[in-house]
């Protein structure tokens, strides 16, 4: 019995030693590879159009520079990325969400290269600041989207509204939503998440965190005013969350005709053209609130890991991707706004339907990047459906503030 136990112990010890010797758990920054490199690129799940356009541009670069590019599109990007980093073999270039930025930037897992890019100064300042960590502009924003008010023009004309009625402030938005509401159609439809409600916060002069991004400011009078306004809209019956009228998202509601106005980003353009080509619509800037105009910007950046041995090659690929002509070509491909001002202006000239979205770029608020805030905001989202049934906005803000303080304080 004793001998057997000893043997098991020996086997265990051997297994431990073997595992310890394994490769992949090497954290020191790698030597740069010389000669031609094979870049592993990880993209998120996107439309096939977007994937093909990106892939084509990358292949052109590969041929010109004598490198190879291996593009993988992941259905679950955060998971695959986390696995890559935890195992010590992250992809050489990947798409990174703002919500995960600080988590990777803080321990120095991200290679800070963006300041050296040829067009770095031309990138929108609001986007730059999202991906800046401790004064260093870490990774280059890929492209971006903003929110606008998308209107079903036929419904608009049918109730006798004209261009002069386009809502400029909250009161006007409330009024037109009421006029546009019929038993089968809601005047305004939006998603029940902070990515839409946050725009109202900005319009009221509030936001989730202070400008440094390190202090929670969820429970503020401004945010409370915004949430009260949204609740009033919801309870008046003129406004609904997409889920409540059996739609996966607001764009679908607009396409199906169960919404006359929606608050969405410019991804709605491609989606409507593909799924509901008969729908006639126009986009205008979001109405201003008591503190002025406000909208949100959504973007991702091109992340390069510190441990990659192909950093230089990856950097030159990003330089190629953020080149004005390439950004413009990408925009053509699938309708996102280039992150560089020059490219964006060119792009909007040839795409008038993007004007309203681009107009928001100058005052748009980027997503918060603090580590751990994602689950706090998810909890906020989960409480929003309750607004319709009379949940107390003050209580929602207070509990979110408490949760955010716990995360940011650590």
């Amino acid at each position, binding site marked *: 019995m004793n001998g057997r136990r000893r*043997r*098991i112990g020996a*086997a*265990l010890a*051997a*297994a*431990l030693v*073997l*595992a*310890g010797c394994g490769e*992949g*758990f*090497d*954290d020191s920054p790698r030597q740069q590879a010389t000669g031609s490199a094979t870049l592993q690129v990880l993209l998120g799940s996107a439309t096939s159009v977007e994937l093909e356009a990106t892939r084509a541009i990358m292949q052109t670069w590969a041929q010109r520079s004598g490198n190879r590019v291996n593009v993988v599109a992941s259905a*679950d990007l*955060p*998971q695959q990325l*986390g*696995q890559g*980093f*935890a195992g*010590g073999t992250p992809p050489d270039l990947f798409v990174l969400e703002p919500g*995960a930025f600080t*988590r*990777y930037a*803080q*321990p120095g*897992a991200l290679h800070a290269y963006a300041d050296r890019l040829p067009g770095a100064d031309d990138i929108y300042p609001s986007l730059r600041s999202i991906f800046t960590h401790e004064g260093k502009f870490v990774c280059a924003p890929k492209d971006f989207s903003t929110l606008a008010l998308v209107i079903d023009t036929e419904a608009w004309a049918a109730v006798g509204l004209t261009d002069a009625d386009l809502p400029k402030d909250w009161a006007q938005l409330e009024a037109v939503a009421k006029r546009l509401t019929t038993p089968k159609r809601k005047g305004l439809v939006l998603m029940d998440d902070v990515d839409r409600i946050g725009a109202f916060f900005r319009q009221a002069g509030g936001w989730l965190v202070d400008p440094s991004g390190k202090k929670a400011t969820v429970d503020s009078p401004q945010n409370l005013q915004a949430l009260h306004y949204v609740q009033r809209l919801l309870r008046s019956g003129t406004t609904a969350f997409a*889920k*409540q*009228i*059996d739609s996966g998202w607001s764009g679908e509601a607009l396409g199906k005709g169960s919404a006359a106005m929606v608050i969405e980003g410019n991804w709605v353009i491609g989606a409507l053209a593909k799924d509901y080509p008969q729908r006639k619509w126009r986009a205008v800037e979001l109405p201003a609130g008591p503190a002025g105009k406000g909208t949100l910007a959504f973007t991702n950046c091109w992340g390069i890991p510190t441990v990659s041995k192909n950093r230089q090659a990856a950097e030159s690929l990003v330089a190629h991707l953020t080149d004005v002509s390439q950004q413009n070509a990408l925009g053509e491909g699938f309708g996102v706004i280039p992150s560089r001002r020059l490219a964006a202006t060119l792009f909007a000239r040839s795409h008038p339907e993007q004007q309203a979205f681009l107009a928001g770029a100058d005052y748009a608020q980027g997503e918060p990047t603090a*580590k*751990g805030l*994602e*689950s*706090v905001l*998810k*909890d906020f989202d*989960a*409480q929003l*459906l*309750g607004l319709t*049934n*009379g949940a107390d906005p003050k209580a929602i803000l207070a509990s979110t503030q408490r*949760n955010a303080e*716990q*995360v940011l304080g650590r």
Partner: protein
Amino acid sequence: MFAAPGIALLATFVLLPMLLALWVSVLDWDGTYSPLSGKAPVVGLDNYAALLTEDGLARRDFALSVRNTFYFVAISVPVQTLLALGLAMVVHNRTLRGRGFFRAAFYFPSVTSAVAISVVFLFLFSGSGAINAVLGFFGIDGPTWFADPRGVLHELFGALGLVDPAAPPEWLSGTRLWGLTLWEWLSGPSVAMAAVTLLMIWTTSGNFMLIFLAALQNLPEDVLEAADVDGTTRWQRFTKVTVPMLMPTVFLVLTMGLIGSWQVFDQIYVMGQGNPAKTTLTPAFLSYQRSFAEGSYGLGAAIAFLLFAIIVVLTWAQRRLLRDGRTS
């Protein structure tokens, strides 16, 4: 010596990962480097404390996930076991024509991919889907199933006039237990979770039917014949002879059902990811979300070990209960 390869395999693929997970659960590790490098700060039992004792979002989420899964298990395990036994009795019946067909039909959901079935259910239960169309035929205005966070028990209390769901009394909404109010604990499964429960019952009962069927076919014929000779009715024969002989199988099915249900993940991942209003959050999904989506691997690993503890305790309790039931 002959066992050495087996032990080595077991050690590499079972024991080592478990030890590593246990190690991660006492770290504040964000997943951007190796957990064995010593760079990750050791926080001792902090992750467990955040889930069990400290007031905060982590504990609240975990408590919610345990509540959701508790109602889920409390409904799905007994129902799927009874249903499986019933189905097995039906297809075991020699006088039934086309037994092969029914056997295959009942087993079919179990061999189909959980993801595929979940997607089909999403369509069936969508607000304008088949289920609501059928309900509409009977004049019932069906809910938007997967978007409906209302607790079934809450609605029931409301319908019976016991408690007003919009304004629960102070002793319910004011008393807090492990981060949730008593009122929240008593919510029952949400409408969305009820739909997931239905799906789970439907897919797993075929599987367990097969186990019951195998057990039924192994029952000694002579005992059943003896019961017939003694003049039992069919019901008496079933409850007094068949079921007692099936008890070991019932125990197996209950245990497997209990473990499988507590670990439910695929269906949640496809159907709701915790939505609406976190009422389909389960510990397994929460662990995944905290680890991979948010980089709090220590917390995720701690959730996994607490889930393990819950399952061990419940299985042990169930074993005690069933054994007592048998000796009495």
